[in-house]
């Protein structure tokens, strides 16, 4: 019983975790990405289409990452090259891509809302037979490939950010653009790359939603997870591990909320918890900053 719940929580964490890691990388590079929801949506639609068309999960994932990355790159170029406010551009992309996706569903497939082509290949799951039946650890069996991949990305991201030249350049771009320019690097291009990576990861997250369990696309499939991911990386500040913890927390919320439906806890209220947590975390950070400023 507990295994089923934990597994559900882990599976629900995956799209948030992937997107939040992308958002974290993007934010360290100097852009707060409000358009993650749009990139996720693009990835989810493309994954279903390619998976049904080619019967190949690998191709579907690749296509979803490319689609999300393309939306990310487009958004980044407007922000970096046309010096546009990233928040508004992000909101604009959220609105425009949601409209575009629905427009496509109506004109190309003649459906409103849900698109379920036949023969969608789903993400493979890995059975770990000797874990079955062991309490808690049993949850690790039957998990899909992207969930394992997402968690593998956490130490990888931490390593890349703090132990590689690329990570140093990225962090420098976010904290001191002028310095990066002075040593002869192109901060805007570095920033574009970080947004493209964020978009690709969000696209994969979208694929997890559409071809992870059910194999269909719905216009509301992302359900605000792009913004929950934003909450997770704000919670995580600069650390991939803390970000993962935040994503896990929200994944647990989601799984618990589904379990608790009909037990008196209203879903609408529980769903707002991630957002409440962000405000609390930001307030805490603000108080800490103020205290530090006073003592120094």
């Amino acid at each position, binding site marked *: 019983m507990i295994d089923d719940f934990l597994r559900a929580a882990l599976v629900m964490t995956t799209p948030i975790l992937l997107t939040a890691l992308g958002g974290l990388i993007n934010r360290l590079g100097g852009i*707060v990405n*409000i358009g993650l929801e749009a990139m996720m949506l693009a990835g989810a639609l493309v994954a279903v289409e390619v998976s049904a068309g080619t019967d190949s999960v690998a191709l579907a994932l690749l296509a979803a990452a490319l689609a999300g990355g393309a939306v990310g790159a487009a958004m980044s170029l*407007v922000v970096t090259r*046309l*010096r*546009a*406010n990233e*928040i*508004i*551009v992000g*909101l*604009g*992309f*959220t*609105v*425009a*891509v*949601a*409209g*575009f996706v*629905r*427009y*496509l569903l*109506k*004109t*190309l497939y003649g459906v409103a809302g849900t698109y379920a082509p036949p023969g969608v290949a789903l993400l493979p799951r890995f059975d770990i037979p000797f874990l079955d039946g062991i309490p808690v650890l049993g949850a690790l069996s039957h998990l899909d490939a992207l969930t394992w991949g997402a968690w593998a990305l956490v130490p990888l991201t931490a390593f890349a950010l703090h132990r590689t030249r690329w990570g140093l350049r990225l962090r420098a771009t976010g904290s001191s653009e002028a310095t990066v320019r002075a040593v002869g690097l192109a901060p805007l291009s570095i920033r574009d790359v970080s947004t493209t990576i964020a978009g690709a990861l969000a696209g994969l997250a979208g694929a997890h939603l559409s071809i992870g369990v059910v194999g269909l696309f719905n216009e509301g499939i992302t359900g*605000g997870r792009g*913004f929950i991911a*934003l*909450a997770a990386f*704000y919670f995580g500040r600069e650390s991939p591990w803390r970000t993962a913890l935040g994503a896990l927390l929200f994944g647990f919320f989601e799984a618990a909320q589904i379990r608790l439906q009909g037990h008196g806890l*209203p879903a*609408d*209220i529980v*769903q*707002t918890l991630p*957002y*409440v947590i*962000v*405000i609390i975390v*930001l*307030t805490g*950070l*603000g*108080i800490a*900053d*103020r205290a530090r400023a006073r003592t120094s």
Partner: protein
Amino acid sequence: MTLAPILTAAAPFALALAIGAAVLAATGHEPFSVYRLMVEEAFGGERRLAATLTAATPLLLTGLAAAVAFRAGVFNVGVEGCFYLGGLVAAVVGYQFGDWPAALLIPAGLMLALAVGAAWMALPGALRVRLGVDEVVTTLMLNFIAIGLTSWLVNGPLLARGSANSATPPIAASAELARLLPPTSLNAGFLISLALVIAYGFWGRLTVGGFRSRLVGLNARFSGAVGLAPGRVVFGAMIVSGAIGGLAGGIHALGLVHRFVAGFSPGYGFTGIAIALLARNSALGVALAAVLFGALTSAGANIQLFSDVPIEIVQILQGAVMIFAVAQFGLRRRSAA
């Protein structure tokens, strides 16, 4: 001097239309005939014009709410949440106290909507001024909280008895705002909204408060140095912005929807941001941009009826305008940053 602002406002719109044209052409539609049909559907004849102005009513106020905040340099993206809360509160007053006379009921509903919007922005305003917490993220998060909260209320405690969808009972007839041009749904809310936008124009140009808020928006440190209290101005702008957002929701509930339903706003608060940015916070600009976006909305609904172009083309156009409204094409001199 007179041409530059028009150019900077027209460029995003032209680019958005170009993107929309590309989408239409790629999906086998003739862009120009679609656009012509949209213009006819938005402005051709009294009824269509009334529909456009009805659609512009909430946008006048959400645009104004955003402009009031942006002008003082606060990036309030929380108007959407205020709109939901204001709408809910006004609707509840409208059906709970249905036996009150209209002269009492309507002001009570609208004032409460205004108050709840203002109160909702007190927290992010205080956090920004006291602790330096970025208001963009807090107000964005508060939107989702307001939407969840109102959705819970209309699904449970305030759900109309015997109603399957998430909605409050309809408001009393005495709470409904007067219709200006029956049978169209254009109502007194449009006049209230327009009057407020005009008042904002005068306030911004002619009063000390308006000057002060612009100064703080342009340079908070300088205005602090010359003895203004930027914190107070910023907090005030946040509260007024929230109040206008709440009022917008109240007017929408009493004027058009006549109840509160889940999904009350299709993003009016966010469209308001685009409007304020396109208008560069000017009153005239807000009025024009609101009518333009209202025209898009009302035309979009009709072209879906009369042609096979999905209504979502409007959403694509609105999103594109938002994106390009903040892009700088080198028409303006680069700020010394």
